[in-house]
């Protein structure tokens, strides 16, 4: 029961953040929601362990990210232009700003996109991004710098690159 309560609190606190991150990474709201729910289900399977981590959200985010970027799933969906289980309820369309940002992110190489999203949307430090993606800090900095410049160009805004 204590496990139930702690998991439920964790789920309610972190589900929106995970969804936002996965949506930014995939550009597909249905894929992002499926991946997020699946990641939380896996976390519950291992909650006695995962719940004891300093940062269980990092575990769930990593699992969700890996599910979301499943290459076979994306390829099959792209080939068949087929929607996965989608929204039965009408959802307001995303704002123009959201659409522009999602489109711009989708044009970045996946490594740059991942670093950018983890750092600027999921609020992870450079060191934490390095740990989550398994690359050196210097590589993360380079990806952030290149990604920010590319993103700024796509969005026609001026980046300031002093902090990476």
């Amino acid at each position: 029961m204590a496990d139930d309560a702690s998991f439920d609190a964790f789920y309610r606190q972190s589900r929106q953040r995970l969804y936002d991150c996965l949506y930014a990474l995939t550009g597909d709201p249905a894929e992002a929601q499926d991946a997020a729910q699946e990641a939380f289900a896996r976390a519950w399977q291992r909650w006695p362990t995962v719940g004891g981590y300093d940062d269980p959200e990092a575990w769930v985010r990593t699992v969700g990210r890996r599910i979301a970027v499943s290459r076979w799933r994306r390829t099959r969906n792209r080939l068949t232009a087929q929607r996965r289980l989608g929204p039965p309820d009408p959802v307001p369309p995303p704002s123009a700003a959201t659409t522009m940002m999602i489109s711009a992110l989708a044009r970045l190489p996946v490594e740059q996109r991942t670093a950018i999203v983890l750092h600027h949307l999921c609020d992870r430090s450079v060191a934490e991004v390095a740990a989550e993606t398994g690359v050196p800090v210097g590589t993360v900095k380079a990806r952030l710098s290149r990604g920010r410049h590319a993103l700024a160009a796509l969005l026609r805004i001026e980046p300031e690159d002093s902090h990476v």
Partner: protein
Amino acid sequence: MSDHDPGLGREGGAAGTPPEPLDGLGEAFEALRRQRPPRPFATADEVRGHGRRLAARRRVAVGLAAVCLVAGGGAAAGAVLADAGPGEPGGTVTLAATPPGAATASGATTMPTATATPTAPATTAPRTTQPGTAPPSALATTVVPSATMTVGPGMLLTAADLGPGGWADVAAEPFEGGGDAWFWADACAGYQRSDYPSRQRQLDWAVVGYATDGGARSVLEEVEAFALGFGARSLADVRAVVAFCENRPAFNAERTGAGPTTNTIIRTGFAGDESLLVRQSHFYYDGATLAPEPRVTLTAVVRVGDRVATVWCDGLDTEQVLVLARRAATRL
């Protein structure tokens, strides 16, 4: 907050150390926060229930995999590394050698080779062994990676193999970067790489794809090369994942009305040293409306020695898929 509240407010505090101040991109990122998902979030009860079902299915599938392996005479025997694998954080698999996304002569995309960093000796007793099955020593073996086990361009299906119909190559863009490339990794929810020992012994990998009729007919082929003896283990792993995903209710099925996702082996022994034909069926949304019938695709898995071809076909009938599978076997 209600469990069904989509949570438009930013829940909880920022996890970890916040990034340093943003420049003009800040507003653009803010636009991405607090997005409303397509459906209300599942309740915590539903997520826990799903997790429990996954755990129960995993136990059954792992038991079946062990039984399949023993029934196969142990030819595919292999050590099971007791690591988490890339399905979960904390695994010890590292990427090495082949640059990601490197193109082959055929335009296929090769993937970085997964090299397991053992966390235990290769003779570690498999943790999947069930009571009544073979003792650990029967499954443990020494892995002998072979430098010659690669996937050459000539081993992949070509557009000519698919016959007339204007088949065009499809770009392999999604096959870049990290993640688990195994075709069956997303057959259904609950996949864990560590349940399938052959994943740790993949030596080379390539994929090609073709489509025609505006995507109404598509073929994707994945060819993998494994360490000595692990080709057969790979087929045992496919059987296990198909058993695990045999009949899985769609997430939130009670709300959406979607039927189950199914995976069924419908034929065996039609090509190569070993082969399976798997029928996959799942319900989907056609726009905002649930399609009345599930989408059905066929996937052939063919093994020749320690090379395995997986041929996924959409819009092809069984006989056409079998023809392609035999061509794939010939190319291996």
